[in-house]
């Protein structure tokens, strides 16, 4: 009996959606992008009480450049594994489940739904034995870790692209068209990987 009683939490977990387990994670990024990208174009590091408008950053919370980086990697279909040295890495302060919730910044809209699309992309792009998971042969946390890793690798590539742009022109992303143009070009010929690469080279 006591075993069943002790499982009470496990039963709850069983009903919990995997996206929620994933949502408790804080994806990591390479520390070198903290200064060169994150702080350069977002309010990352300013803190919740900071006056976010002061520096006139293009993006708000630190997850926003992360999302941009992820989608750049996703559409370019390029992943760069994170450094194996944990000292080189840093986790984002905000767990995924808060991403895109209504920002305290003025004139911004919530886009919490975007999380699900990121999740969908991760499922699509990550090689996972979902049958084994459903059977209980592998732990859900293992699967979520794989999903987060995929995310980190796409974002890691995206950050490298963004860093490159900023090296060439520190004000590159101040143009409201900069990110849009990147995405428009990356998604122009989705089926043709070669020209995608080319498009990115041109960026």
């Amino acid at each position, binding site marked *: 009996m006591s075993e069943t009683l002790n499982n009470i939490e496990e039963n709850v977990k069983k009903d919990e959606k995997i996206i929620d387990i994933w949502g408790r994670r804080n994806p990591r990024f390479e520390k070198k992008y903290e200064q060169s990208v994150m702080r350069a174009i977002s309010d990352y590091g300013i803190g919740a009480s900071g006056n976010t408008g002061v520096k006139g950053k293009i993006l708000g919370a630190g997850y926003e450049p992360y999302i941009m980086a992820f989608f750049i990697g996703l559409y370019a279909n390029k992943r760069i594994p994170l450094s194996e040295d944990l000292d080189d890495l840093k986790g984002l302060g905000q767990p995924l489940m808060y991403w895109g919730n209504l920002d305290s910044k003025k004139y911004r809209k919530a886009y919490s739904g975007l999380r699900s699309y990121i999740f969908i992309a991760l499922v699509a792009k990550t090689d996972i034995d979902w049958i084994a998971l459903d059977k209980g042969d592998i732990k859900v946390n293992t699967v979520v870790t794989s999903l987060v890793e995929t995310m980190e690798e796409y974002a890691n590539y995206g950050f490298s692209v963004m860093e490159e742009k900023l090296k060439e022109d520190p004000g590159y992303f101040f143009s409201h068209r900069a990110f849009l143009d990147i995405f*428009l070009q990356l998604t122009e010929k989705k089926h043709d990987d070669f020209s995608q690469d080319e498009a990115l080279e041109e960026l």
Partner: protein
Amino acid sequence: MIIQKIEIHNFRSYYKENSFELINGFNLIIGSNGDGKTTFYEALEWLFRTDGTNKMDTKYISKKRSEELQPDDSDDVRVAMVYEHNGKVKTLEKMFRFTKSFDGEVSTSNYSFSLIEGNGVERIIVDGVSFEKDLPSEMRKFIMFKGETDLDVLQSSNAMKLLVDNFSEVRDFDAYFAFMEYATKNANKARDNAQKLDRKNQDRIKELNRTIEHETGFLSDINREIGIKENEADNFDKLLKNIEQSQESSKLLVSVNSRIENLQKMRSETVARIRENYTINLLDDMWVLMGFENTADEYSTKINDLMKERRRLENQYLVTTGEEKAIKAIQKGITDLPAHIPGRKIMEDMLKEEKCKFCGQKAPKGSDAWNFMLARLEEYKASLNTQKADDIEPYYHNNYIGELQKRDTTLNDNLSDITTMRHKIQELMAFNNRLHDDVKKIDANLEIEYEKKKRILAQTDGLTEEQLLANYESISTWMDKKNRADNRIDVLKRQREQHREILDKAHLDLSKISEGTAAAMYAKTALILQQISDSFKNAKELNKKRLLMAIEDESNAFMERLNTNDFKGTIRIVEKANGQGEAFLMNNDTVRIFNPNTALKTTYLMSVLFAIGKLSSEKDKTQLPLIFDAPTSSFTDAKENEFFSVISSLSKQVIIVTKSFLRDGSNGEVLLDNSRINNINGRIFRIEKKKPFDDKKLGTIQTVITKIK
């Protein structure tokens, strides 16, 4: 003076010998930037210089020629003009020698400036300074014009005097004035001396003399006050002219300001409609999903495959496990009816009530029926205890794939939004771009209005908008003061007439008193001389007025021809209080146009120049050529065609250097616009840089002249 030929030798870009054979009519020299147009003009300026300045300047030397000289070699810079003046052909020639030393330095020497008359044996060579007689240096400003700014010749301080002296009938009056003054003074003196001898009329003469003295003083006071009042009126007039301008300006300002306000409003409204937070749109409006279609497809395929596999595996398991269980059950011999039917609660009730609730028959405790029901209940209770062991273990402990599948359903519902997103983004961008274009147009209009405003403010001598409006308000005050001054002048002039009459009568009486005496003779002579002097003065004024009116009439006639299809206005030429002349345009003869556009200004000023030229030729049969450097740069092609065709029909020598009539060819080369040239009557030269040349080396630049027609 008709220029027949201009020779330019080693002068700047004119390498070695070059010559322009000009006709007595319209001469057009066409060249692009850097082709030697201005150099042509400068060569003439240098040649015409009679004041001995800038004799030998190394900057005049052809770089190409000096570079190719061998050490100790030399050549000449020479500009010469062959012209006909009063039936004689003369050559004005200016030259100097330049020599290259062994260390590559170029030095100058052997300057000469000469005027050669005739040819062959009868050649008379004089100093070039004699050219002053044919073309006085102060007259050059009436024949040579650089750009459009030089054209307003009347603005220069002595231009009016030059005009009057050269072209009106009064040019020799000044010599007479001096004599008249001297003669009148002496005549009066002689009369006075003679009258002193007249004892009989002594008292009367004294009285008349007092009257004369008195009236002369009166007149002098009146004249002084008239002068003051005229000056006052003139000052107020000037102020009023400014205000008149300001009045116009203020009205203009009000309308310009209101247009600016409207445009600014329109601009901010348009700008407000621009939605260009594209980076934010990527997140807030999830534009970042614009390329998500393929990922979504990938997901759907993956999930569908997973679901199929999941079901297949489960079914397979259930079938296998079910078979095993069925065999076990048969071995156990369990009844067909499931153990849990009808259920524990109902069975317990039936046993307690000793009645079968299914068939309604009584089942007393201990009866077969009662015992059967008890056995069923026991069997059920037993089945509860054995259930765990017998139940089929579920194949899956989780249903995460189900979660993924549910998300896929929603994803498919949203797919159309994702696939159309890109198009919508592009539509919005196009919309924003259109708004940007609108803003650009508004900005261009705003720029025009700002420019107008600047001009309005600029034309009132640095007054600020507030000052200008303040001035505008004080217009009535100034107008009153001017009117009062004018009225006073009227009164004074009437008084002056009266005093003059008294004075004249006193003079007349005085001359009558002495009738028959020697004094009378002197008095009469003095009176006559006085009258002649006065009439000379009047004649000079009248002549000047006539001259200005004649120039005005001729100018308007030229204007009529030069500006046929456009607004003309009327040219007025007046002498200002300071003796300078002024030519301006009037609208309907009542309102002065203060800021005509450049093309209109050029046209009316050139009309004035042609008029002056025409009058000068009528006066002394000597025509002066007109030489313009790029006078029509503010003209449109159509206007320019018309303008040149009129000029070419004038019987006057005009030389124009211009870059008009050139057009860009398809390969970036500059071509002559032959269709336009064909409509021009006259001589046309094309000057251009000899090809090839090195655009970095001045020493490779050489102007070549081609006679087009």
